[in-house]
């Protein structure tokens, strides 16, 4: 539909996305990267959290208020290459327009709460009534069955990891559980499962012509990662819990101090070859630690031995020495280390694409790499409401007048002050992130 010249895997697939924060936006972004026309529906009345966050350097700038929702670095991290359509679904006119769009889409993707979706009249049954062959993928916190006990409960980002058992597994044995909410693995894991489910749904539709309803309870999906520990509990009553950075499978494994403030190296040397290499570097070969069982039984003592050795080294230097000897190791990278990491840079991990408000913007790439049909980034944005008119006209077949009336009736909105342009303070050296580009104007 959108692009007939390229041969991307999701060429011709159109996605209607009602996403907030990470779980479904990140899935939509993956699909947009591989060619889908992903239409992100946005609201001014209850905006996506990435629109509220804005950007640190525009926070005090009242003159840039109109641009602020487009400036959070999380906008491209979660939404690059999508089109943004401003629709207020709680208005009748806005909802009607949404239904006209849905009729033209292949995929419906949402991580609104199940009850909120039902109240908007956008539950599976309602959507399938308009578009029977749709691949409908929803990611509610606790599933979409109203009969289930937690159906009405509030699922709130940072609460997900403790709920599914991740926090209890995180930290040192003697400490309280450490929170892992700085990042949100359950959200990303749910997003990947949603992508797998969507691709499976499209495959089913190719074979049978029929759509599907996929209900991804984020509570349940992440629990799939607990398998062996659920089994062990069932068999023996053992409740596995946090053990710091130790491994159940051997020693040593840990995070060890290096020279300088808060400098650390992570090392896994649990197998025979790795341990031989590490102990040879340490100059301690040929003692009882060469026995795997002894290392495991005395791992605290072993950790102290290794810490004494590592603490004199520069962390980067040591990580290179260890890897050169065949030991899995890495500096415990800070965000500043990542900024200077030549490996990450050499692999084009950071990407730059045009942005209607910022001119261009920088964002993280995609870990999924295909040799013959690589994805592409068409846009770092989108700006909020940037494509409202274009999409309602091209996809829903509305006339210019109809769109204007819808906007006037507050059923839809367009980009605010598109003429207000801003540049990120680091815009002039964005090209330093791209290997092989020596002139910013090349971009």
């Amino acid at each position, binding site marked *: 539909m959108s692009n007939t010249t390229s041969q991307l895997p999701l060429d011709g697939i159109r996605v209607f996305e009602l996403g907030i924060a990470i779980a479904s936006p990140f899935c939509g972004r993956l699909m947009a990267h591989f060619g889908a026309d992903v239409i992100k529906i946005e609201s001014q009345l209850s905006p996506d959290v990435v629109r509220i966050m804005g950007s640190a350097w525009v926070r005090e700038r009242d003159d840039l208020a109109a641009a602020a929702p487009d400036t959070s670095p999380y906008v491209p991290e979660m939404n690059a290459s999508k089109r943004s359509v401003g629709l207020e679904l709680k208005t009748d006119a806005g909802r009607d327009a949404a239904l006209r769009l849905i009729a033209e889409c292949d995929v419906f993707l949402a991580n609104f709460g199940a009850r909120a979706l039902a109240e908007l009249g956008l539950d599976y049954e309602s959507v399938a009534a308009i578009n029977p062959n749709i691949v409908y993928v929803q990611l509610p916190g606790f599933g979409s069955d109203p009969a289930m006990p937690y159906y009405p409960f509030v699922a709130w980002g940072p609460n997900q990891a403790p709920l599914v058992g*991740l926090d209890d597994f995180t930290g040192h044995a003697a400490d309280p559980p450490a929170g892992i909410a700085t990042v949100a693995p359950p959200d990303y894991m749910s997003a990947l499962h949603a992508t797998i489910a969507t691709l499976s749904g499209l495959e089913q539709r190719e074979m049978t012509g029929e759509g*599907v309803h996929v209900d991804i309870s984020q509570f349940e999906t992440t629990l799939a990662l607990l398998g062996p520990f659920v089994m*062990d509990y069932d068999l023996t009553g053992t409740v596995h819990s946090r053990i710091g950075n130790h491994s159940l499978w051997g020693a040593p494994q840990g995070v060890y101090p290096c020279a300088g403030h808060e400098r*650390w190296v992570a090392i896994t040397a649990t197998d025979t070859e790795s341990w031989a290499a590490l102990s040879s570097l340490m100059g301690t070969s040929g003692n009882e630690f060469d026995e795997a069982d002894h290392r495991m039984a005395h791992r605290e003592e072993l950790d102290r031995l290794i810490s004494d050795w590592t603490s004199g080294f520069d962390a980067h230097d040591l990580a290179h020495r260890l890897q050169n000897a065949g030991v899995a190791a890495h500096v415990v990278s800070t965000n500043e280390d*990542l900024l200077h990491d030549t490996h990450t840079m050499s*692999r084009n991990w950071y990407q730059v694409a045009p942005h209607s408000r910022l001119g261009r913007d920088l964002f*993280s790439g995609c*870990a999924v790499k295909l040799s013959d049909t690589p994805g592409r980034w068409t846009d770092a944005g989108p700006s909020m409401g940037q494509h409202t008119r274009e999409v309602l006209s091209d996809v829903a077949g509305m006339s210019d007048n109809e769109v204007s009336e819808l906007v006037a009736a507050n059923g839809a909105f367009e980009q605010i002050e598109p003429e207000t342009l801003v540049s990120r303070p680091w815009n002039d050296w964005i090209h330093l992130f791209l290997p092989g580009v020596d002139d910013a104007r090349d971009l």
Partner: protein
Amino acid sequence: MAGPYNGVRVVDTTGLAGAYATRLFAGLGAEVIRLEPPHGSPLRTLAPFAESIEPPENSLWWAYLGMGTQSVVVDPDDGDALAQILSEADVVFEDRLPEQSPIAADLLPDTAIRTTIVPFGLTGPKRSWKTSNLVSWAASGVLYATGFQDRVPVAPAGHLQLALHASAASALVGTLLALRARRTSGTGQEVEISMHEAALMFAPETGVPVFLDDRVHRERSGNRRDLGRPFGLYPCSDGFVSIIVLMPRHWNAMAEWVAETTGNETIMEEVFQDLGVRMESQDLIDTWVEELTVGRTRLELFTEGQRRGIPITPVNTVSALVDDPHLLAAQFWSKTQLPNDVEVTVPGAPFRTNSDWWNITPAPLLGQHTETYLG
């Protein structure tokens, strides 16, 4: 209908880096052949073990991640057997650099998709570096930001090997995209996953674009964060609960709950509705909230707090999850069978569909299907 990937033949030569992907693939209908060396897959050596079963069949990692697959033993020196297995493959999963792979390009049909999962990718200065779950998190920026300030940084949920499953799930996404592309092109292609990048993909919060924007070093902040109050983990009679109060309506409900149950009227004062004031008096707020939480159980606090509209959840342990009333009512847990015929609880389908997709058999014995494929 059967799973949507019914009829797709997958050959998996990986260990933990790919196992979660091929397990899912099998559950969605694919025919997954796991190639094992004569002494068995490395997954078979991973604890915890089932006590009454002998190696190499006793690993619960194998019993879980091997579900749905077929075990075919091929001696690494038996080129003919390898060629025979690969000749009809639609997909191959590998976890080795090309120069270390026993699979020469001409062993695969040109319709095959070759999915390679390696520590730092197929290019770049760290191309030959090794990794582990811990090392992947270290290299992604996540490890540095996890744990308590005065303690050694820790990997998120180290037991679960999340960084490896992130790589595997990404690999399955790439593979399914390549299968879809094959519908048009008629040919296979290569899918590459850098385990480092799979972890980076999970961590924009500690990544460079966000750092450039706010120039904030993400330091460890333990199990509470200075974004609001109460915000993080609070002790209760049988563990901890997680409470995330940011929105005004959530604070109002929280203050009312504390006042009603502990008789604390001060918390109801209007001044605390201001997030800034709550942050300035965070120790006081935390003390008041703990007066509510310490004498109650996780489940009591969870259901009553949620009834009041407060974002609160239990900090669950495996035991609490297995007994969780919602998961029981939703019939989430499933069973699989161990080689000694003992039935054991496992997580059920990772998602639910109105079409009958998910179907998964017990993990195979070592070489159980060798005869079928090479006989």
